[in-house]
């Protein structure tokens, strides 16, 4: 009897410690880093894109006209647009200053999908294939918009680079 009684206490101790360690692990792993510069993120995400070669980097004016966002409000911005504007490949990486900003950027990205659909809907067959696969993803203060054949691979590369 005493043996079981003694065991009960030890079991409780072990069980609770395991629970604690599991919780800590989940917390640490789940945490998104916020110290990663966009230059580190650019490589892994871009190399996933199928249409990377016919895309070119665009400046703050394009960011404003396409997304209605002002580049100065954010820590870093990286925008890639198609060389010929009859294509739909596009990628936007924004590192916000606060998480609240990330919500507004994500909303602008979703609106961009709507705009692109409006443009290519009735006749852009390949373009619509890309737009249907477009992805908007927010990880902490980082926002990603990808419209490409391999958007999902780009998204997982984006997430891998940000978690521990």
């Amino acid at each position, binding site marked *: 009897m005493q043996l079981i009684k003694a065991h009960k206490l030890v079991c409780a101790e072990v069980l609770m410690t395991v629970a604690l360690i599991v919780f800590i692990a989940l917390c640490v792993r789940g945490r998104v880093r916020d110290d990663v510069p966009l230059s580190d993120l650019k490589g892994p995400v871009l190399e996933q894109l199928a249409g990377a070669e016919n895309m070119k980097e665009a*400046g*703050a*004016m394009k960011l*404003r006209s396409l997304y209605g966002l*002002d580049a*100065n409000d954010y820590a870093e911005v990286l925008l890639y647009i198609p060389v010929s504007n009859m294509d739909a490949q596009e990628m936007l990486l924004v590192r916000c200053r606060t*998480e*609240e900003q990330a919500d507004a950027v994500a909303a602008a990205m979703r609106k961009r999908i709507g705009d692109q659909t409006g443009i290519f809907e009735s006749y852009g067959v390949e373009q619509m294939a890309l737009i249907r696969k477009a992805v908007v993803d927010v990880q902490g203060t980082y926002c990603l918009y990808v419209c490409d054949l391999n958007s999902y691979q780009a998204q997982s590369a984006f997430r891998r680079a940000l978690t521990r």
Partner: protein
Amino acid sequence: MKETRSRKRGNHAYYRILAGLFAVLFLVFFVLNLVLPDRTLSVREKRMLTAFPAPQLDRVLEGNYSNDFEDYASDQIPFREFFTDLKVYADSLAGRNESQGVYRGRDGYLIEKMETPDDVVVGRTVDAMRGFAELFPLPQQMILVPNAVSVLKDKLPLWAPTADQNAFAERVAEALDGSGIGFKDLRDTLQIAGLDGVPLYYRTDHHWTTDAALACAPAVLETLGRSFTAKGALLPVTAQFSGSLSAKSGLGVRERDTISVWQPEDEPVILVTDSAGKRASLYSWDGLNGSDPYTVFLGGNEGLVRIETDRIGAGRLLVFKDSYFNCFLPFLLDSFETVDIVDPRYYSGDLLMLMRQNEYDQILYFYNINTFSADTSLALVLGEAVEQAGRK
């Protein structure tokens, strides 16, 4: 503890009534808060009030939902205006005369403080202007309009700290030296007009009045190589104007300003083209009755507005501006055939193409100091054009 025992015999009657008062206050407020319908717009603050935020799992898990709900709860509290006024009243009793960067000055004037300018930002803007001037060596003028915080310094509360607009204007003048861009600070013109009793700034808004713009018209047109000879009168169109500084700070909610409009005797025929299409009048009368009456001048936020007049051959002007220019525009119409007005904060077109398409005779930068000292859009728009020109 010694201290709690002494209250043991305390006056229970008082605490029972207090209990009742507290319960009633909270119950009444709780019920009212649930029963009264949510409002969508606060006219006083000129903004939309937060609607009930539906809980989404990821927002809740990130802990952001609690902030959304707090915004909703305080936005939709019954008698919201009563509470905000009470806070402002209590502040004035406690001697505070500044709220959200706006001072409550003498004679009912609300005056906006000037934040210390970031010289890097201003430097970038001036460099972009110089680069643009090299690219398009047209005659160009920079007009800098000081704000009430500098011109109506005597109306500020005692010792109220603010950055120095005159020193800032001199720094900009120095930076533009030798760039081929003329520089004119309207400080002296306004001060003289002020001495003549001209009402220079609105009490509840951060803009200057049309009277002040009229007083400066001769000086500005002179820098553009023209003379202001038009005769006419300034006629009031509204006396109900409660401006943006009152909305921003909650102060001066009982003050009302008058907006006047220039009525020239010989009015030029004009055609205004903007994103909404073409119209024959400069003024937007539904803007006057909307939530911001100042938009009577030229309407809302337009990236590019083209004005064509029947003064043929009087020259083609390109203007980079902020909202201070809107009420000044009527005084230019006699002196130019077309006036293209670009507001860099909302312009997303191709400036280089605009320059190539139209042969402008003159370029005018027209800014007030508060906006110019913190502006990043002008550098963006000019810089893009210069860079594109370099690439092609």
